Every structure is written in structure tokens, then in C-alpha cells.
């Protein structure tokens, strides 16, 4: 089989010029994984800088009227406010190891950009972040955060001016700059080896959660659930459960206004096979193969492609992909805030919304592990205006 395939999905569909830098990254990653000094430095950063291991929190008030127990894997407590930091630290150390003197990255809502800017500041590497011009306007606070951390933010006004265009621009930069620049891709998508690199650096989520739940429950969870945009927090949660076939894995995609409206980002469950940003995967596209814009209240899930391994897991039946609308995610956002004193990221609220719905359906004792991939501070303005728009009062 060709490298970087998950079944038939994945691959390395990039201009020939980008094959050597991707091969270089692949080799550097393999050698770093086998190097105890590299692992040691990364573990040290994860522990003493990022705040790992993160807690596993049993919900005290949610679902208490059901036979289910919901556990939250608290990636919202990772430095930077989301799971993004886990893999950014890994890739930034790799960049240093490869002797790169500059890092570029794309960002949608700004979370991956902020995480990359954090790593750049910590490890003393200049960082340039490509961000859709529309997103720059929508996420002013994160633009300021990145700049405060010393990164340069480059607005991208081509195409739709959103995440996919920011990725296009980062790839264009890299085609000229690969000799001294690392492209720090933000999710488990894109060309090989990114889906594998990102999964391995995010695997820590599932590894910790598996040990924690074994300790607390004396058994594995019945269900592990995570939201899926590009799919990095989900693949990080799933990776260590893949062999445990009785653990049901559920990826929750953004249903936006509802999949039937066409305004959504449910790529695995409602997209179709295609090639975007270097991978053969599922994409949202029109009848001619032009890529469509996705829609979600959650900017972090707003992406018209998805990591190829998720498509493989869906096609083989190992994981199941469902979707949750903007409205349902907003309801879960409020519910967790009120019931448990935890304000989740809107992304993570999608996973929670599905879990809450599931426990209301079940009559058996069920242990559900929800990846709470990020905290919701970044979403406060948006949620306030959405709730006002729907004339609901907090």
C-alpha cells in the first residue's frame, strides 16, 4: 500500500514540489518518535507547561435522572484553552529538530493560530499565521492574542476568505519557503504525513482517558464521543480505543442549520469523495467538483473536508458519524455551563449535545466519555448574540 493511506483514503495529492518537504517531515517524525530525548522533551513540556495530564470529570448534575454516567475529558484545561496545544508543541519541536527557522500555520477561528503563536514564543521561532479576512473580522480578540504572543497574522482575502483559503495560502507560502520553514498544519487532515503526525501527538488524550476511566469505573466506557471538524481531537481520543471493539466510537459533525438545508459541515456523513488540501477524503462539493463553503456556528468545525482516517473509520464501521445542529449545540453549551460550572467550546458542545441526547434514550447503565476539547471563553460574544437573536434570555 502507498504511504499515508487509511484504506483507500488519504495520500499525498500536492504539487510535486511539496513532496520532498513532506517526505522530510515524515522521516523527521519517524526518527523523533524513536528518540527518547525527543519524547522526553515533549513529555516535559506537556506536563510542566501545558498542564497534562488533564482531569477526567464525572458530571455531578447532568443526566443524574438516567442510568448513565457522563465523564468529561478536560482538554479545556490545557494551556491555550484547547487540545490544539498538544500537537502544536510536538510539531514545533519537530520543526526545531529539522533545523527550520520559521513556522507558518493556518487558522480558522484562531485557536490553532493562538496555540502555534504560544509555541513560537516559547521555543523562539518566528511564526506567521494565515487567517481568512472574514475570520480576522469575526475573531478580532484572537488576532490580538496572536499578535500579543509575537506572531504575525496575514489576512487572506482570496476565495471565500475563510479557513480553506487560509490553508491554500499557507501551502502556497510553503511551496516557496520549505527549505527553512515548517508548515504546522492544525488538524488531522491534509497530505501524508500530517494525519498521522497529528493523530500521534493527540493520542495522549485517549491514552490518559483510557487509564483514568479504568481507574474510576474499573472498566472501559461504553461510548467515546468527540466533535469532528478536521478531526484532530476525535482521532486523538479514538486512537487508543480502536482495538477495544466493544467501545462505541462516535464522531459528531456540525449539522449547522440542518443537513437537509445544505448549510452544514457534516463532511463524513453528508459529503462525498474528493481531493482537497492534499488528501483523498470526503469533501463538500457541487455537481462539478468545486468545493463548497461549510457552515457552522462553531468556527472550529467549519471546514469542507475532513481527516481521511475518519472516512476510513466510517466506511469500515469502526466509528459512527452523526451530526448536531447549531441550535442543539447552543443548548448543550448553556446546559453544561449551568449544570456543571464548565463553559465548553462550541465545538465540544456538539459532542456533549449528542451525549445528552443519547443518555436520554438509553435505559441501560451506560458510561459515556465525552472529549471536552476546549473551553468556551472565545465563544462568549457569539453565544450572547445568538441567544439574543433567538430572544432567549440567559
Amino acid at each position: 500500500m502507498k504511504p499515508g493511506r487509511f484504506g483507500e483514503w488519504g495520500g499525498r495529492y500536492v504539487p510535486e514540489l511539496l513532496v520532498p518537504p513532506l517526505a522530510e517531515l515524515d522521516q523527521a517524525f519517524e526518527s523523533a518518535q524513536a528518540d527518547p530525548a525527543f519524547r522526553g522533551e515533549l513529555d516535559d513540556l506537556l506536563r510542566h507547561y501545558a498542564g497534562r495530564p488533564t482531569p477526567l470529570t464525572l458530571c455531578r448534575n447532568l443526566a443524574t435522572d438516567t442510568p448513565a454516567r457522563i465523564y468529561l475529558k478536560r482538554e479545556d484545561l490545557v494551556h491555550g484553552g484547547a487540545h490544539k496545544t498538544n500537537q502544536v508543541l510536538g510539531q514545533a519541536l519537530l520543526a526545531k529538530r529539522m533545523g527550520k527557522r520559521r513556522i507558518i500555520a493556518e487558522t480558522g477561528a484562531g485557536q490553532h493560530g493562538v496555540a502555534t503563536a504560544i509555541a513560537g514564543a516559547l521555543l523562539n521561532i518566528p511564526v506567521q499565521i494565515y487567517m481568512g479576512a472574514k475570520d480576522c473580522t469575526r475573531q478580532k480578540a484572537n488576532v490580538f492574542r496572536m499578535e500579543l504572543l509575537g506572531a504575525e497574522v496575514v489576512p487572506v482575502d482570496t476565495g471565500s476568505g475563510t479557513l480553506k483559503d487560509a490553508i491554500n495560502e499557507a501551502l502556497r507560502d510553503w511551496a516557496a519557503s520549505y527549505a527553512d520553514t515548517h508548515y504546522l498544519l492544525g488538524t488531522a487532515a491534509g497530505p501524508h504525513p500530517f494525519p498521522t503526525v497529528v493523530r500521534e501527538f493527540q493520542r495522549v488524550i485517549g491514552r490518559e482517558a483510557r487509564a483514568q476511566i479504568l481507574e474510576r469505573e474499573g472498566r472501559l466506557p461504553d461510548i467515546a464521543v468527540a466533535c469532528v471538524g478536521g478531526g484532530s481531537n476525535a482521532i486523538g481520543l479514538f486512537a487508543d480505543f480502536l482495538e477495544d471493539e466493544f467501545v462505541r466510537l462516535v464522531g459528531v459533525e456540525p449539522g449547522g442549520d440542518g443537513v437537509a438545508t445544505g448549510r452544514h459541515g457534516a463532511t463524513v456523513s453528508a459529503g462525498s469523495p474528493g481531493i482537497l488540501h492534499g488528501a483523498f477524503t470526503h469533501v463538500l462539493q457541487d455537481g462539478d467538483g468545486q468545493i463548497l463553503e461549510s457552515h457552522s456556528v462553531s468556527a472550529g468545525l467549519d471546514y469542507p473536508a475532513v481527516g481521511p482516517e475518519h472516512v476510513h473509520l466510517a466506511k469500515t464501521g469502526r466509528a459512527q458519524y452523526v451530526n448536531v445542529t447549531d441550535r442543539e449545540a447552543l443548548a448543550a453549551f448553556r446546559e453544561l455551563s449551568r449544570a456543571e460550572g464548565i463553559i465548553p467550546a462550541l465545538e465540544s458542545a456538539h459532542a456533549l449535545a449528542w451525549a445528552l441526547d443519547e443518555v436520554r434514550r438509553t435505559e441501560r447503565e451506560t458510561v459515556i466519555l465525552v472529549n471536552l476539547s476546549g473551553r468556551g471563553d472565545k465563544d462568549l460574544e457569539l453565544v450572547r448574540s445568538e441567544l439574543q437573536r433567538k430572544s432567549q434570555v440567559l
Partner: protein
Amino acid sequence: MRRYAMMFEKLCAEGRGAFIPFTVLGFPDEEQCFEHLKLLARHTDALELGMAFSDPVADGPTIQRAITAALAAGATPARCLRLVARLRERCPDLPIGLLVYANLVVHPGIERFYGDAAAAGADSVLVADVPSEEGEAFSEAARAAGIAPVFIAPPNADDCAFDRIARLGAGYTYVLARSGVTGAEPAACAPAEGLFNALAVRKAPPPVAGFGISTPEQVRAALAAGAAGAVCGSAVVERLGALGPGETRHEAVTAWLDTMRDATRAIRGEFSHRPSSRRASPSIP
């Protein structure tokens, strides 16, 4: 595919290289584009035509803008191929190459895409985001349809990549004059001679240089380094874009095209020095 072989044979006899302008099909709209194609066809050896795709990662600002304009004017793959068919009707011997992105090929199905391209009269297809390591299926389907699969030879390729590019490619080899994306800026330097030698010893299809070529001097430099021709994209698109609708005074554009084409001429001496890097009858199936 034979049109490329015939062109290189003829040019070799004349002691020149190929000048191959590029534009985006459907830019700025279907009818103006057809006028542009007719104009270009009269002043070139071959044409390279881009199919508008929503996410053109290998293209710089000029061609991106042209693609956006074409899509806004309603360009679709079917309409693009209709333009090719109309051009083919007028120019039975002109080599016509298509430049596309992978999703436009896999979406209708690889076989069907190449079949449709052949039916429209295209001679070659270059898929910008399909490198040689992913190129096997594309090359096979192209050849089965009678289309020459063109691959890119970048300055940073290793021996394995050169082997694959030589084995899978036909028609011509697109040699990158520099890294980066398409566009007049930064300007190309002449591609490294090592690149041409690597292709020549593997009997790869004739090398044509592209990326950053916008002046006659750069055409000369590329040919002196060993190229059998030069593709010029952004500089052409910029000039075509400056023509208003219904514009009849094309003199400035055609004069410039002729200067570029003439620049492939001044290499007679070079030609005889390097027969190996410019084979007249390449390995075309």
C-alpha cells in the same frame, strides 16, 4: 498526443523552442475567452489552458484572480471543454494542453474525465496537485483515452521522482524554473542544468520550463539552460485581462507574444550542443 511530437520535430528543424502561453478557460467570460484563444493561437506553437477550480493551491495571485473571474462568469468543466472543442475545430494541428486540479478529475471519475478531454480535442492534461507518486492511475487513464499525461519536474526532486516522471509522463515535461507558485513575481532564474540532464538521461518527454517566466530574456535563459520550450502564464493572463470587451486593437499583445516567441529562436548553437536534452521524438506512446 502526436501533435506535440510533430511540433517538437518541426521546431527542432527550425532551430527553435516552443512558446506556450497559458490562460484560464472562461476568463473573463466564455465569449471573450474564445476571442483570446483565437488571438493566442495565431501567435504560438502550443497552448496550455487552465480549468477553473475553487481552490487553486499551485497558483499565484494573477491566475487566482482569473480563476475567480471565470467561476463568477459561470465557468464549469463542461463549458471549459466546449471552448477547447471550438478551438480545436479552428486549429486542427495546434497542441492543446489542459491544466487542472485533482478534484475536477476524480469527481466525474478519472476515465470519464480523460475521455471527455480527448473528445474535446485536448492533447495533454497536467494535474497540478497530482505528483508522480500518486500519478500511476492518472497516467494510465490518460493514455487509455489518448491523452498525454504531463508531470512536473521540480528543482528539488530526487532520483526516484525523476524516474517516475520520465516513466509516467508523455507529451512534454513541465520543468519548474523556480519553487513557489505561478506568477511573474518572483522572476524565474534559468532552471538548473542538472534538472535537464536528469530528465535527458531518463529519456523523459521534452522539458518545457514554466513558473515566473514573463520576459524574452527569461525565455532565452530557459532555452539556453536546456529547455525545449517555455510556458508563460501570469504575464499572458495579465495582458489578456487588460483587453476590454470587444477590444479590437490587440497590437500591443500580439507584438509582445511575437517577441516572446522570437526569443525561442536565438539558440541555434545551443541546440546542436545538447541533442540529448532535447529529443525530437520523445517516448510518446
